């Protein structure tokens, strides 16, 4: 029998949509001009970039001039945070400390960037989260001051799917900005949210927003930063004047075209697939809890507080890496927060911030579904999992 190959790791990356690939193809070979060139070869590709930029702007409800294409969401996060800090530093008198507020469950792209800026003299506040993975708006209110320069909070979490109260945060920041000459800027990493949640920047009330192409069935190597017009920001990569002078380097034309089409696809499919995926995920989650004693779910309890496609489990007496590899042997691709391959050997900072014990965090399994997931795949997973858990528990004696 042919072995199953089931992909339950859509939060890590998504397969490329066939339509997206089709749109990208000409730009690998036939349309090879440099968008900065004056001739036809250049103009036809710069027109393609303009078109992609318009699609993205349309999706976010902003102007095309507010969209910057980058090489990854990590780069976009860096550009937003470091680019703003760089600009503010030039404005401020020397000796003044800049203040950033972020959360303890951010993606490393934000967390490590903040830690680096801390080493360079900025003050960083890391907001705690509750056992559900959500920040408490009161904690933010207590920490924000008229002198705070930036709040950077992720829209939805990649490990356990918690959706942070972005609109509430924006309101709080707006309140604090009202009578002050000094402004607090708001950045959100919306990488995991883009497939499912409203990303209209005006309605959200954000100054910066990060997106990634390869989490929305687009190509790897393309990120987006929305930066509100007039917001202070400095380029990190210097050179030519591409991307409004904010990101030098010849554009990844095929990738950008792919990003534009991927964004288009979300608009078409959002409502259609959301309910189906959520139903499959809920069935999977409920069945696992019934079939596996000593299992629990990490993340928000209320369905409106979590992504429809991500579920994070802990299994007593199991280590996550061994579980992921065992499932992989059965053809099922998942992921774990047991980072026993990391230098520190410490488990996921996200799960630890939620108050899980070391062993609980090491025993975590993330299952993330996507638009190609079928009920048959979910059933196969539910059939295989108990045996795999049973075998590993026999080995662990727990």
């Amino acid at each position, binding site marked *: 029998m042919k072995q199953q190959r089931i992909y339950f790791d859509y939060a890590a990356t998504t397969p490329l949509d066939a339509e997206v690939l089709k749109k990208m193809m000409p730009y690998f070979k036939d349309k090879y001009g440099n968008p900065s060139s004056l001739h036809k070869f250049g103009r036809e590709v710069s027109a393609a970039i303009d078109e992609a930029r318009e699609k993205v702007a349309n999706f976010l409800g902003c102007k095309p001039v507010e969209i910057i294409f980058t090489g990854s969401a990590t780069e976009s996060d860096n550009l937003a945070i470091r680019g703003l800090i760089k600009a503010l530093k030039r404005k401020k008198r020397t000796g003044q400390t800049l203040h950033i507020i972020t959360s303890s469950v951010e993606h490393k792209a934000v967390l490590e960037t903040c830690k680096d800026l801390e080493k360079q003299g900025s003050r960083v506040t890391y907001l705690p989260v509750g056992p559900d993975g959500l920040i408490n708006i009161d904690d933010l209110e207590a920490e924000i001051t008229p002198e705070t320069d930036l709040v950077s909070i992720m829209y939805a979490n990649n490990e356990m799917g918690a959706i942070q109260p972005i609109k509430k945060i924006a309101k709080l920041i707006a309140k604090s900005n009202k009578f002050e000459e000094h402004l607090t800027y708001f950045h959100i990493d919306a990488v995991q949210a883009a497939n499912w949640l409203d990303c209209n920047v005006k309605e959200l009330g954000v100054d910066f927003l990060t997106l990634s192409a390869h989490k929305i069935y687009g190509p790897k190597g393309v990120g987006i930063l929305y930066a509100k017009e007039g917001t202070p920001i400095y380029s990190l990569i210097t050179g030519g004047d591409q991307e409004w002078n904010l990101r030098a380097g010849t554009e990844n034309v095929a990738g950008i075209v792919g990003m534009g089409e991927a964004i288009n696809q979300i608009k078409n499919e959002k409502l259609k697939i959301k309910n189906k995926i959520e139903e499959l995920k809920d069935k999977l989650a409920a069945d696992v809890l019934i079939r596996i004693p000593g299992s629990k779910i990490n993340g928000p309890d209320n369905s409106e507080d979590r992504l429809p496609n991500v579920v994070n489990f802990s299994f007593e007496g199991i280590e996550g890496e*061994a579980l992921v*590899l065992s499932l992989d*042997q059965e053809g099922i691709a998942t992921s774990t927060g047991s980072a026993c391959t990391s230098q520190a*050997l410490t488990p996921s900072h996200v799960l630890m911030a939620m108050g899980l*014990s070391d062993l609980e965090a090491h025993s975590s399994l993330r299952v993330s579904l996507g638009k190609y997931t079928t009920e048959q795949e979910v059933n196969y997973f539910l059939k295989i999992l108990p045996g795999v858990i049973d075998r590993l528990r026999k*080995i662990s004696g727990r």
Partner: protein
Amino acid sequence: MYNKKVMEHFTKPRFFGKIENPDVIGTAGNPRCGDLLTLYLKIDKKGKTIKDIKFETLGCAAAIAASDMICELALGKTLKQAIKINFQDVSNELGVLPPLKIHCAQLVTEALRDAINNYPPKADRQK
């Protein structure tokens, strides 16, 4: 990430399980790094040779494979020989572990040495 030999010992370990009434037990590991292991040993009547050995390991694939390997290496050896097994022996027998997983080989040798050190001297055994 892992070679064939490690995967073999991870997917089909020969020595996992418990020994009822073991002569001695050795443990190692800590919850922080996610590895906890117990070795169960049976020693022959003369108190010299390891005649049965089994492991229970909560840990990653490398920890499970290394546990299985230390049992394979220790079985049939005298306690004097067994205490000399070091982490390089375990890693080499597994076709060398990835650098970040060397601690798993250290962990299993620790557990074996703990067991041997726990084995009471002859006078105490006869009580």
